[in-house]
């Protein structure tokens, strides 16, 4: 399950910026990065976010060539919690 959006914001340190998001997300969705992950492109003025909540065991999801790419990966486990909406993530994260 992909949730993707952009946000008009800037940062000087992508690492610190990412960490601030990551800490919130770990609290919210758990610290098992084999059930979900998020990525961020820290472009000043236009941060782009990708969230993935894995829907099946063994299937890693990410974006490639503008489409969701599913790759076999035995480490991946289905995300068991309720999958949030884009609005819920935005309200919670930013």
């Amino acid at each position: 399950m992909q949730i993707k959006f952009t946000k008009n914001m800037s940062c000087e340190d992508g690492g610190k910026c990412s960490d601030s998001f990551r800490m919130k997300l770990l609290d919210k969705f758990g610290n098992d990065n084999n059930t979900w992950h998020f990525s961020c492109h820290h472009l000043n003025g236009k941060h782009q976010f990708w969230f993935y909540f894995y829907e099946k065991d063994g299937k890693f999801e990410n974006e490639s060539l503008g489409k969701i790419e599913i790759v076999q990966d035995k480490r991946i486990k289905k995300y068991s919690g309720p999958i949030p909406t884009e609005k819920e993530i935005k309200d919670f994260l930013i």
Partner: protein
Amino acid sequence: MPFGGGGGGDLPNHEHSPAVPLDGGPLDMNNVTGGSLNQGSITFSDGAALQELIKPAVPAGEVLTFAPAATAPSWGSAGGATVAVQTVWNSATFTTTAGSPTNVTSMTLTGTLAIGNTIVTGCGSVSSPFGGHVMQMYLAAAGSQMGVGNYEKSGTDPLGGYCQWGMTVFVSSAIQTYTYQILTSNSISEARVQGAAAQSVGCNLQIMEIA
């Protein structure tokens, strides 16, 4: 025909042979013997008589050449490869929490060299204040993988440093556009990162075309 004159008998052919007395001697080609030639001309034989090859009207580096199946030399282009090089660079900070290789999106490098034989080289680095990052790169065109990139210093090494990659692919097809990353259908290279939080990705794509 000996130039000495007189005497009888058969007259030998006039060959300017140095071995034959009174045969005119060897032609002195060093600024002595004259010929009905234009300045800059050279001569060749058509098998029956000497022919004149006139110099190019406006010399521009021509070289003497023999075209395939030709019977006479001619002036031609100096030839050799035409080399064009295009280098594009991009960098970004991309972060992911994924434990599996994840595409670095939103980065695009585009080159527009066109035809002939093309050498594409890519190199780049990923840096992270954390360990555990891996970088993988491959070249692709129209979304299809063309070659496999190098892996270097995966795992936890280097911690807080750089992970570098590089590769070269020889392409003989006439691919018109090369792009770095995955937002267009003509992506030629793709970087993936995985692991810890903050990773800065820099990529350099150099396209050298030999036509």
